[in-house]
């Protein structure tokens, strides 16, 4: 938030920025000297520091515990056949199959959601950062994005159930006797894109704002229009931020459970809604890794904890991989820092 505020301050007046004093040296990045030991401090301060140390180490230990625990359980229960067998209803571990369908489902949902959120979010970010007129609309749009970020996903899910049941959108889900089911990959993907949208907008916007105005001015000077500048200069320069936003959004999409549980139907298998093959699947119901874990946890209908562990392990690995990608993109963004 602080960084955002600083960026906004930098941008607010592009010309004046050159005459304002240099931005503060950030704290953590520079290795600070440690001239004093805590021995001379008051007891309360030393206790405070000890608490800070303890909590810091606790968070490390907790994360290590979660990752190692899931790793151990995952290695125990993940087997290759889980990736290629369909889930089935049954009473025991041997009957209930694997998580092929949920894995595919996660992929489909992620594609649809990011396919909407990435272009739309980038466009909104560009508009907010580069054009932003009329100003009242820009403020409303900002507030909207902020509100969207705070809206509970279960509320988005219910809203989705309402709009996708309308006959107008019947072609996006299964339809019998003119009654629209409103549960489909389209419905879930569309609502999940709203979960990813604020993250894409915020990150792309920050990336664009970090580009100093002389870059734009140089582009105008060689006769490029504002639109061409945005397309050919600014967006490519902000690509690491676009990647960061996309990855963070993707992480939220594949981690969301509530929207999937409500809008993808209560089945674990991919159930087409009839029609051409792929369209049938997209209009049909299914499941994702998160809903698979939910159903197979001891509190879910399926109740096969070892399957849930295996799926949780796979999901955690996907999340970890996304984290690493965000890290790499962040590093590239820092290398590109303009000064």
């Amino acid at each position, binding site marked *: 938030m602080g960084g955002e505020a600083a960026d906004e301050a930098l941008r607010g007046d592009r010309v004046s920025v050159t005459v304002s004093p240099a931005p503060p040296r950030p704290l953590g990045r520079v290795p600070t000297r440690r001239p004093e030991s805590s021995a001379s401090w008051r007891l309360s301060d030393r206790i405070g520091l000890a608490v800070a140390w303890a909590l810091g180490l606790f968070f490390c230990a907790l994360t290590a515990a979660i990752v190692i625990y899931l790793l151990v359980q995952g290695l125990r229960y993940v087997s290759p056949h889980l990736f290629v067998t369909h889930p089935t209803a049954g*009473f025991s571990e041997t009957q209930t199959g694997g998580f092929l369908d949920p894995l595919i489902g996660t992929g489909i949902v992620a594609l649809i959601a990011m*396919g909407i959120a990435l272009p739309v979010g980038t466009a909104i970010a560009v508009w907010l950062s580069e054009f932003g007129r009329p100003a009242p609309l820009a403020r409303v749009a900002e507030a909207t994005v902020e509100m969207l970020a705070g809206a509970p996903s279960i509320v988005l899910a219910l809203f989705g159930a309402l709009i996708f049941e309308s006959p107008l959108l019947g072609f996006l889900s299964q339809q019998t*006797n003119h009654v629209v089911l409103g549960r489909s990959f389209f419905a879930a993907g569309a609502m999940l894109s709203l979960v990813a949208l604020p993250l894409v907008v915020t990150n792309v916007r920050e990336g664009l704002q970090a580009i100093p105005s002389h870059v734009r001015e140089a582009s105008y000077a060689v006769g490029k229009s504002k639109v061409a500048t945005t*397309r050919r200069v600014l967006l490519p320069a902000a690509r690491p931020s676009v990647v960061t936003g996309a990855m963070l959004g993707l992480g939220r999409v594949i981690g969301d459970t509530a929207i999937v549980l409500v809008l993808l139907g209560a*089945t674990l298998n991919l159930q087409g809604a009839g029609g*051409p093959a792929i369209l049938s699947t997209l209009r*049909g*119901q299914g499941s994702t890794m998160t809903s698979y874990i939910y159903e197979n946890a001891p*509190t879910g209908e399926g*109740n096969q904890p070892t399957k849930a562990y295996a799926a949780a392990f796979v999901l955690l690995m996907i999340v970890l991989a996304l984290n690493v990608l965000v890290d790499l993109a962040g590093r590239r963004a820092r290398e590109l820092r303009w000064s």
Partner: protein
Amino acid sequence: MRSSKKVLAALTAVVVVLGAPAAAIARTTIFGSGSSAEQPILNLLFKAYSKLHKNIAFAYNPDGGNAGVKDVQKGRSALAVNTRPPLPSDSGTTQFKIFLDGLCVAVNPANSLGNLTISQTKNIFLGLTTAWNSVGGSNLSATIDPIGRNSTAGSYTFFQSAVLGGKTQASNVNPQTSDGLVATAIKNDSNAIGYVGLAHSQPGSGVKTVSLNGVACNQTTIKRETYPLFRYIWAVVPTAHPSVPVEKFIDWVRVNHQAGLIISRAGAVPAFNK
């Protein structure tokens, strides 16, 4: 932006190319919903029927028997499966008995309890009897942990009318969203008692059924209809526009011997056209 547009275009192309040839195969999909307790049996029946009739496929949404009836009333499902008898509130639907099942009262194997009367069961689930030492025949003395079903379940409504005299189960009853969960909760808690469908109390499920009014809960007593909590499983279809493939399937389940064999192997009792 440019690259994302390209990706979108490529995706559309893939959808169009792969989607086209598959359109040729005509298949009727029957959309059903309802009881989660009977889903394992239904899945076996669906599979067998689809094997016999290659052009029929099934999609089943296990959202609970009562919810299934509402789906049929609203026209969202062509077929619902419910575990309680028809109620006046089921208006607009026609219901068929498809097979027989029992609602077994089950306890943890550590409990020596062998028999309960209906009124004892009622008192436990209404919160009037709260400790095992006030229940004759049990070696336990601790607090009773009653486990029940949630209100979308047909089993809940059936239990409510057959045992509780229409009253709502007490607030200390721990509501679970499926029969499997009830069985697990009983397995993990030596002081628990709950009600589950016969298929969920088979050997290996980790729970022990108790006799009700002196009658054990098994396929024989259910078939003879002597077990007090025997119940028919009902297929629910819309009265106004029933679908022909659905009616054919229901007939097959009710009379066909292969279907009967599947039902009894899965732990229920075929009704054979009752």
